[in-house]
Structures are given as structure tokens and as C-alpha cells.
């Protein structure tokens, strides 16, 4: 199958999935009891007030009608207005998204570096105590979820050895009048490396908490497929050519061993992004996930919907990209 056809089929399937997400989140927040309007009214509001507000947010119509109106808006880029913050949902989501993207990307980079390094080290020293040690560490890292890692890190690097900041995204006294929400990138572009360092110090622990479980998965899987690849004929042949073991691992084995890891990393990356919700809360990091929890607590239906859709779009996009990268990296698929 050629790349374009593959892409179109996946795109169509993605669209169906996203529609399903929209239907479910819309229904879930509405069928269940709990009246969002009641929560936003001051005590002593009259029934007339309630009716007026309901009409304002379109909550007086039937659920299918509400869905059609909302979905039509979504297709036109209008996600409605946040009830609690009284601003357009799209703007709110886009305002917070960069913080979460920076955090998740940083975590992914850390996971790849840690996992990749551990796999390469374990393979380079396979059959020794070093490999056993790495295996044990990976096993532990894998069975502890990001939430727990976050708490452990807070205790170690926040309290015992207070190296890093345990809350927020940036020190309040360091406001730089950012023009974008991509603080990290902007600080680098504007050569304000003091700000960059401050951002990284805030990001380090939440990112590491998110990264460790994924690093363990990458480490285990990559090690496994590297070891299998190292036994293949072409790697053996390369060894006879006088290359060093390190070069054989990096140049001959790594590229062919990486494909299965890549696919799994994609799926796992979506889990990592999902984990930002609670980890951001834990570290009071002002990202999308933190806002999402506030939205739920405030029964801010339009905002919840917007955020969930936003996450769903990211997840499916990640999977799509992984799928295409897989196809592009695999010479057999590319030329078939």
C-alpha cells in the first residue's frame, strides 16, 4: 500500500474516533445529575434567572439539539464560552496548551534519552552485572506510575535536597512579558537564558515523573530488540570488519532494532500526555491538565468538552504521526 492511501485511511479512521469522543464527552457531562447553572448562581436567584442563564448557554434545548449546535460550532472553530471563566473556550485551551506541550515534549525527550541510554548500556555490557542492574531498575520504574514518581521526587528533590522548585511553571518575580505561551522556546529565542534555567528548574521534576515509566518501557523494549538484532548475520559480518562493538551497536543494530520501540513509544506517549493532568496538578504547573481539573470541579461543561477534544486531537495526531513515521522509516514498506 502506498503512503498516501495509508495516510487517507488512517485520517478517516481518526475522524470517526474523534467524533466518537465528542459524542461521549458531550453525553456524559449532560445525562448525569448535577446542574451547572445552579452552581454559578448566587443564593437567592429567582427561577427566571435560571431560565435566562440556561437559554444563554443553550442548556434549555434537548440534548441532541444542543449537540448539533455545539458540534456545528466546533467544526467552525467555536467551542463555546467557558461558564466559570466567561471567555471563549478555544482561546483558553490554546492559551494553556503550550505549557502542557512543552512539559510533555520535555518528558518525552527525557524518556528517550534515559531509556535509550539504559538500553544501549545494557546491550554494550550484556551478560554482566550492569545489565542485571539496569533490568531491575527498569522493572521498578515501570511498576510505579507517574503520580507516585511525582510525589517521591517532591520528597527527594523538593524537601530532602531542595534542588528544584516544587510548584508552578516559573518564579513569579521573573515575569518576562512573554509574547507567546511557549515560554521555554521564547526564552531561548530571546536569549534570556536565566529565564530558561528557571523554567527548566520548574519543569524538571514533573517532566521526570512523567518520563520515568516511559523510559523504563523504552529501555526494556529497545534492549530486547537490540539483543535480538545483535545476533543477526549482518551484525556478525560487520563485527568481522574491524568495527568497535559500540559502533556495531549504533550503526548496524540500532536502526533496525528501533522500529518496534518507536511504535510502542507513540502509544505510550499518549499515556504520558494523559498523565500531565494529574502531574500538573501535583506540581501546580499552569497547563491544560490543571485547568481541566478546575473545569471539572466548576462543572464548566463547555470548557471540559473543549479540553477533552483537545487531548483527543493530540492523542490521535500522535498515533497518526507514529504510523506514518513507521512506514517512512521501514525501507521495505517505503519501497513496496
Amino acid at each position: 500500500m502506498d503512503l498516501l492511501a495509508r495516510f487517507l485511511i488512517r485520517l478517516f479512521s481518526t475522524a470517526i474516533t474523534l467524533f466518537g469522543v465528542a459524542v461521549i464527552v458531550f453525553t456524559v457531562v449532560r445525562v448525569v445529575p448535577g446542574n451547572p447553572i445552579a452552581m454559578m448562581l448566587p443564593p437567592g436567584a429567582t427561577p427566571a434567572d435560571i431560565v435566562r442563564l440556561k437559554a444563554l448557554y443553550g442548556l434549555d434545548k434537548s440534548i441532541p439539539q444542543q449537540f448539533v449546535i455545539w458540534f456545528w460550532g466546533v467544526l467552525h472553530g467555536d467551542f463555546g464560552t467557558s461558564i466559570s471563566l466567561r471567555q471563549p473556550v478555544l482561546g483558553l485551551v490554546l492559551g494553556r496548551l503550550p505549557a502542557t506541550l512543552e512539559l510533555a515534549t520535555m518528558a518525552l525527550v527525557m524518556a528517550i534519552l534515559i531509556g535509550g541510554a539504559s538500553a544501549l548500556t545494557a546491550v554494550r555490557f550484556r551478560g554482566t552485572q550492569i545489565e542485571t542492574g539496569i533490568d531491575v531498575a527498569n522493572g521498578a520504574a515501570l511498576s510505579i506510575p507517574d503520580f507516585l514518581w511525582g510525589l517521591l521526587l517532591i520528597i527527594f528533590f523538593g524537601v530532602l535536597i531542595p534542588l528544584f522548585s516544587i510548584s508552578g511553571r516559573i518564579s513569579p518575580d521573573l515575569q518576562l512579558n512573554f509574547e507567546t505561551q511557549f515560554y521555554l522556546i521564547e526564552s531561548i529565542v530571546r536569549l534570556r537564558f536565566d529565564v530558561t534555567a528557571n523554567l527548566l528548574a520548574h519543569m524538571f521534576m514533573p517532566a521526570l515523573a512523567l518520563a520515568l515509566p516511559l523510559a523504563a518501557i523504552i529501555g526494556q523494549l529497545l534492549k530486547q530488540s537490540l539483543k535480538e538484532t545483535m545476533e543477526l548475520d549482518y551484525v556478525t559480518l560487520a563485527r568481522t570488519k574491524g568495527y568497535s562493538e559500540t559502533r556495531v551497536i549504533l550503526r548496524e543494530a540500532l536502526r533496525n532494532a528501533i522500529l518496534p520501540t518507536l511504535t510502542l513509544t507513540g502509544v505510550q506517549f499518549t499515556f504520558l500526555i494523559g498523565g500531565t493532568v494529574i502531574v500538573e496538578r501535583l506540581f501546580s504547573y499552569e497547563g491544560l491538565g490543571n485547568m481541566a481539573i478546575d473545569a471539572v470541579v466548576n462543572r464548566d461543561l463547555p470548557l471540559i468538552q473543549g479540553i477533552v477534544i483537545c487531548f483527543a486531537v493530540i492523542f490521535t495526531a500522535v498515533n497518526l504521526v507514529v504510523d506514518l513515521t513507521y512506514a517512512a522509516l521501514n525501507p521495505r514498506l517505503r519501497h513496496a
Partner: protein
Amino acid sequence: MTALLEIENLSVALKNGPRLLRSVSLRLDRGEVRGLVGESGAGKSMIGKAVLGILPRSAEVVEGRILLEGTDILTLPPAERRRRIGRIAALIPQDPLTALNPSHRIGPQITDRLVDILGWKREKAEARALELLAEVNISAPARVMRNYPHELSGGMRQRILIASAFAAEPALIIADEPTTALDVTVQKQILKIIAGMQARHGTALLFVTHDLGVVSKVCQSLSVLYAGKVLEDTQVADFFRAPGHAYSAALLAATPKYTDPEGSLMPVGPEVLAAVQAEVDAADREWRHV
């Protein structure tokens, strides 16, 4: 004159296990072509692997020396050993389908060692590769250099592997059953190419095969292996006139038309086998007592 390759009393065993090679001795001079025959599992490939430093992780050398150009490579530190082997020897593998890296183009797979290990300029290495590919009868070498392995046939890939083995002008090439995995029609061509290349480059060749017919055509000397033990080490002409060991004689008798390269070994009689096995067991007992 020191031999190019001199294996002395080499024993290889599985870790804490039985010996796979039993005090093997074998000598190869510059430019010599030696056949290495024996039935499946006799340890032919194991000898090649030991020389090339690619023994499986489960096996280890328990005794003996392997002298390459007079230096015992077993005493060298691993990195140094690898470099030395890479400079002197090369391998033509058995299965061309699995011996090329699927994610690299053909070109770099031939030229990389010239550039990275021998320090050649890339243009020079590429010119050399084109030359070699032409020499192994590949008609469009420039195009093939840009291909990925899966785009090429088995015969084509084996030619590439042959060209690649000769690329750095090694003094020694080990060809481990280089035609077994190929179509019968292609086998003869490949054999011819190897013989031709060997003659032109004057490379010493350790030719592992099942096939006495091939030996009679290509080789000057011959070692017969059984259960990791060298039963006979002789000149090809002598061997076909009067094999020096009962087992060799049985092998020869079991190959009716040894001049036909397509013929292969037929079973050896039980009495002969029992006798050889007894010899092997005796050697093992002696070895344990040492």
C-alpha cells in the same frame, strides 16, 4: 616463512559443556586455497568463527593459539584483536539474504570499512566499490550501489558480499558454504566468481563446504573434520588418489561423481562411523587427563 594463518591445538567448548572443536590444527599459507569439509555440525563454521572472533556467546576457546600473520590474536585485547582481524581477514557468509543490513544502501555497506577503518577518501572508496562490483559481473554497479538489499536477488546479494569481502584486499578470506543458500543455477556462477577473484587477487581462501566436487576444482589443500576433530590434513591431489583416513575414504566413496559440483555427500557406513567416534572419544579422554 611464517604462515598466514596457523591454528594450533585449538579447542572450543560450550561454557561448562562439551568441546565443539577438539584440538584443531590447521595451516594456511599466503595465496593458498584450503577446503574444509565435514558433515553438518562437524564444526567447520566454528573454526571460521574462531578465526574471525565471532564465536557465539555461549562458546569459548579453552585451549590453543590462532596465529594471524604470526601474532596470536587470542592474546590481544578485544578492541585490538578486532582491528587486526578486520585488516587481515574477511568473510563471505553462507546466507546472502540475511548478511546485508536491510536499512543501509549497498554502497556504504561496501565502502564504510574502507573509509572508517582504513581512512580512505570517500570518492576513492566508491570508485573501488564500482570496480569490484564490475569484477563480480554486476552490470549496473552505480545503480546497485544505491539500492537497498531487499531490492536485489539472492545471487546478486552474494556477488555484492563477495565484492565487499575483497574490498580491503584482505590476505585471508573465509568462505562459509557461500553457495548453499542459492539456486542450483546460480551456484556455479558464484563459484566461478569466487575462484576468479581469488586467482586475480592472490588471496588465501579457507573454503568451507560439504562438497568434495567443489574441493577438487577450487582447492589445493584440504582438511577433513569430524565432530570437531581434524581427521586428515592433505593435498587435494593426494586425497583423491589415496585418502589417508578410513572416514575420508568413505566420504569419497559416498560421492560417486566427485567431479560434479552438484553432487553432495551421502551417508557414511556405520562401522566407519563407530571407528571415528571411538577415535574422538579417545582424544577426549586424553584431553581430560591433561
